[in-house]
């Protein structure tokens, strides 16, 4: 029986890579082996700075990459860490993606989503599955992880809202176009919720199996505080998710409402 005095796994920042003006990738060396399945998340703690859930953007047991957007205090602090500084990780938590479904996979990543989808991409490659990766952002300077994906030989297509590179338009618009050109049995998507819900609806209309990774306020991470719930179905993002089959959650608060820190039902804005 483990006594778990080692509540967290210590990790040291090896390097901090600037992705965009708002997004950085931390390359971490782990003090202890950690196995994370694609789509699972970690709770990342810096004493004094808070703790947030992050889905790693690369992982091999000894090294882990976290791609973090500065949206508030904790994420900004983490995104600014220098080599040699330390973070503390607990997890992995959640279910991760189901990559056993047959057929081709279309990966759709908005914002840091492209980074968080990368471990799934690598796993699919390893399995010899055919993939296409759609990456979107507001403009050329807002694209995350594209260089890394190129380095990993991913088959990438880009969309920008302003057309500064790739398709001129939103990811859901681009997505429509892509699936009109060639059929994919599976879609995996991580990104702003308003974007994901549109992708999910499109999949629904086209009979495509779609898995989405949902963001809610994660506090405990282990399923007992109820903070991360998707209503009205009462699914907990931290243990029942964060990955859901879109069919399961279309028609719920997905894309429309979430709960804030106090548990108040508020509108989803992004």
């Amino acid at each position, binding site marked *: 029986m483990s006594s778990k005095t080692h509540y967290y796994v210590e990790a040291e920042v090896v390097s901090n890579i600037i992705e965009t003006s708002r997004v950085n990738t931390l390359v971490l060396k782990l003090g202890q082996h950690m196995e994370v399945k694609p789509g699972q998340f970690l709770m990342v703690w810096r004493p004094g700075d808070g703790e947030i859930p992050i889905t790693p953007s690369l992982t091999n047991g000894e090294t882990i990459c976290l791609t973090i957007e500065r949206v508030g205090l904790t994420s900004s602090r983490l995104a600014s860490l220098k080599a040699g500084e330390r973070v503390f990780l607990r997890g992995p938590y959640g279910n991760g993606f189901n990559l056993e479904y047959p057929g081709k996979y279309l990966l759709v990543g908005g914002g840091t989503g492209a980074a968080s989808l990368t471990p799934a991409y690598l796993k699919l490659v390893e399995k010899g599955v055919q993939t296409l990766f759609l990456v979107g952002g507001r403009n050329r300077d807002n694209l995350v992880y594209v260089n890394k994906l190129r380095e990993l030989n991913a088959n990438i297509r880009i969309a920008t809202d302003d057309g500064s590179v790739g398709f001129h338009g939103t990811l859901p618009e681009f997505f429509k176009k892509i699936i009109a050109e060639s059929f994919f049995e599976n879609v995996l998507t991580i990104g702003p919720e308003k974007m994901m819900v549109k992708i999910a609806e499109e999949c629904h209309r086209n009979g495509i199996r779609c898995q989405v990774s949902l963001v809610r306020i994660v506090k405990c991470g*282990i399923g*007992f505080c109820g903070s991360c719930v998707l209503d009205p179905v*009462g699914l907990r993002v931290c243990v029942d998710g964060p990955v859901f089959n879109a069919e399961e959650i279309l028609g719920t608060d997905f894309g429309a409402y979430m709960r804030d820190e106090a*548990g108040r039902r508020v509108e989803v804005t992004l």
Partner: protein
Amino acid sequence: MHPDMKVELAGLVLRSPIMVASGVLGSSTGLIKRVSENPSVGAVVTKTVTYNPRNGYENPTAIDLGFGFLNAMGLPNPGYLDYKNELAELRDKIEIPLIVSIGPSNSEEASEMVKALNEVSDGFELNLSCPHTEKLGLEVGSDPEKVRRITASARKYTSKPLFIKVSPNVTSVVEIARAAVEAGADAITAINTLKSMAIDVNAMKPVLSNVYGGLSGRAIRPVGVRIVYELYETLRVPIVGCGGIYDWRDAVEFILAGASAIQVGSAIACSRSGLNIFGEIEKGIVEYLVAKGLSNIRGLVGLAHTS
């Protein structure tokens, strides 16, 4: 013959003695509805609502210790007025008693909250035992006089069952519970979490942002059983047992100690089978009753006391 699992608790009829403890489902009425559809669940207690909305503490707010859990959520909740609207919607949709947990910091708040929430609830649980929130919970619940006053204030505005949830972090739980009963409480829920903390040796820092938190789960069961046993020896009101109940044996241990019903909290976080934990506990109790030749669960209550 299938043993009768029905219990009567301070006027409420529960199809099963297994309740959901306060807080472990958060404020989500969706989750409450989902759990209430489980035929093994007899009643649900809501997350504690306070007078004003609370965001709760910064993360880390909870960790798994292996032998239990440590949390200092900080009672996040939308406040009683906001939550009232959600509960109003929920109430027609569920078929089992809905007990609303309230955490007033003084008598006025207790009165106002009970008045407002009375029509949307089947009973109240007064949380005077949260070990990690200033001015709420334990700060109130360790003083018999304050307990008496707050209980009486709540009592004045509802004729529905009134449960008082007590803390193990006091010198005499019996004294606190007695004050509550004398002031009109119908039943006692025991126990809330044990005031505790953890320090990460690598980080060299307290893990919880609030430093102090409450220990729940397996580790506190022997404390909970002891307190239920003590209360049963001295009080004449029903007791609801809570603290580290993971399986049917744990539940039976509490019932033998004197609990008329039991609540499951942390264990829903470590149940492999997710929310099926309630069904597994019920099945185990039923088989135990059959093996012991008992025709109903009520015959088991307090049986460890007979000599």
